[in-house]
């Protein structure tokens, strides 16, 4: 579930243009998972239910995007989801900041991805 959530939260321009996408996603997801497993009760416990709810919502948003022929975008649904409650807002921010921390650790990779993306555009 975490892998799916992380993939949806990471910006396309940072991961899609890279050939090692799967390897990067694995590294980032492992870090997010390990961090949460190492954290204290008051982070670990609520995160369990957040993970399930977020996963279900994300699948639902994807479905809406497909049914509406991309007229309703996943990103717009996500923004509404974040505003629903601070529980979702803070939770998603936690996933994002951990994922970015792990992703940016390899700064050369980020530079390469951004320049690939620029060339593509």
């Amino acid at each position: 579930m975490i892998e799916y959530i992380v993939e949806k939260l990471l910006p396309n321009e940072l991961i899609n243009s890279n050939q090692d996408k799967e390897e990067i996603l694995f590294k980032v997801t492992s870090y997010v998972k390990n961090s949460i497993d190492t954290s204290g009760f008051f982070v670990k416990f609520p995160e369990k239910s957040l993970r399930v709810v977020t996963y279900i919502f994300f699948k639902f948003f994807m479905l809406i995007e497909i049914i509406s022929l991309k007229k309703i975008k996943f990103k717009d649904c996500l923004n509404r989801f974040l505003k629903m409650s601070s529980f979702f807002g803070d939770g998603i921010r936690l996933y994002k900041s951990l994922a970015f921390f792990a992703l940016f650790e390899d700064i050369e990779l980020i530079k390469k991805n951004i320049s690939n993306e620029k060339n593509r555009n």
Partner: protein
Amino acid sequence: MKKIETEFLIIGSGPGGAAASERLLNSKKEVLMIEEGSDFSCNSFKLNPTDEMLNMWKDAALSPAFGIPSITYAEGKCVGGGTEINSGIIQRVPEEVLNSWSKLSKIDGEYYLKAIHEDYDFIEKKLNASILQDRRNMHSEMLKKVAGLNSWKIDSLPRALKGCTCYEPLCNCGGRQSMTKTFLEDAKKDNAFKLESNTKAIKINFKKNKALSVLAEKKINNTKEKIEIHFKHLCLSAGTINTPFLMMKSGLNFKGLGNFQLHPTIRVLARFKENIEAMKERLPDVAITEFMPHIRFGGSVVSPAIFGMNLSESWEKRSHLANKLNNLASYYVMIKPLSWGKISKFAFINSPFVSYRLKKEDFSNLNKGLIELSKGLFELGALEVHPSIKNHEGWFSRKDLDKNEPVNKIRKKFNLMSIHLFSSCSPLNNFENLLDFGRVKKVKNLFIADGSTLINAPGVNPQATIMAVSRRNAESYLEKVNG
């Protein structure tokens, strides 16, 4: 169950425990120190940032102090504690604050007027605290220029470094004079000293008004072994959160225990035309003290991973910065708060519940700090400034600062953090239950030696003060024991 006996048991190996151990060993006492985290001092390699977060920081540095907004705090969890992962800043508490501590503390106020400086002298010498000006550092220069342009007061930040050749913000070459490089390295040479890493104190057992033993758990690979440690004297150095929490878990609780303070801190990211390369330079060696004692600015630790975290706060608005990392500098605004937080113990839950609600004045000070620092950065030529505020658009000129939303509207969106926690066993809150110098009234053979005994927020980096006070507490306890 394995049983161990010792004369002095110290729980925790951070700056408090290490400084106390030096005093005890100096008096020819037998000392056993237990530490929940692992010992990385023998590693010849440096952990990468993600492994460091998972292995050397408590709870992977994801501990929240719940409130509106919540404040993320971080503590060390390894032999040497926070000194192994922080920037090694060694600062004395300003005289103004020491004078107020002296007045506030009815039981050991005299110490803060004079004797604390003797302990500071010793610590600064031991840790080789010095200002290093061996090469030009743009990150530091920028901060000095901001101060110069506004005629603001600045303060030098001595660091515990010796022979550092890497010039990285946190020093990766082994030059940082952490506890494992100083007090604990010396202690390990003493036959009267023993260190058990990966050993977590679970509970203190009391009988009448005496601590008898500590039940601990030692991690060996994937198994856990229970140990019962008997001692004559107990020194609690588990840190601001865990010292009162262990006391609560063990049934030693009293009114005011666990009320604590921290330094709420907010980060600011600024982009300049110049190549600053903050990731390849030492941390700025000055802080702006113009607005002290309530507000302080300084340069933040930067690394690609930390920049990543900053960008994640608002990727849509900051993505253009991702390939301009060399032009980015990072600063902090830190306040000495008026508010106090609370550490609580809930039944059947083995983690402390930490809450912290900032007062109106604290938010005003944070906001004032952000605006003043940002004004200064624009005067210096910053092209854009991004405060750590959720979904913030960023400021692109000085005029944008005037359009900033009022603080009462945006305060919930502040992304706050802290690595300075203290005063959870301050005599200020627990006057009736605490004796002088970290001793607890109800338990004859126990004293506290860590940041939890600071009177209140010092307003500056607390590492040197924690060591000074812990040293003093151990010295004073020995005097009492020796009659």
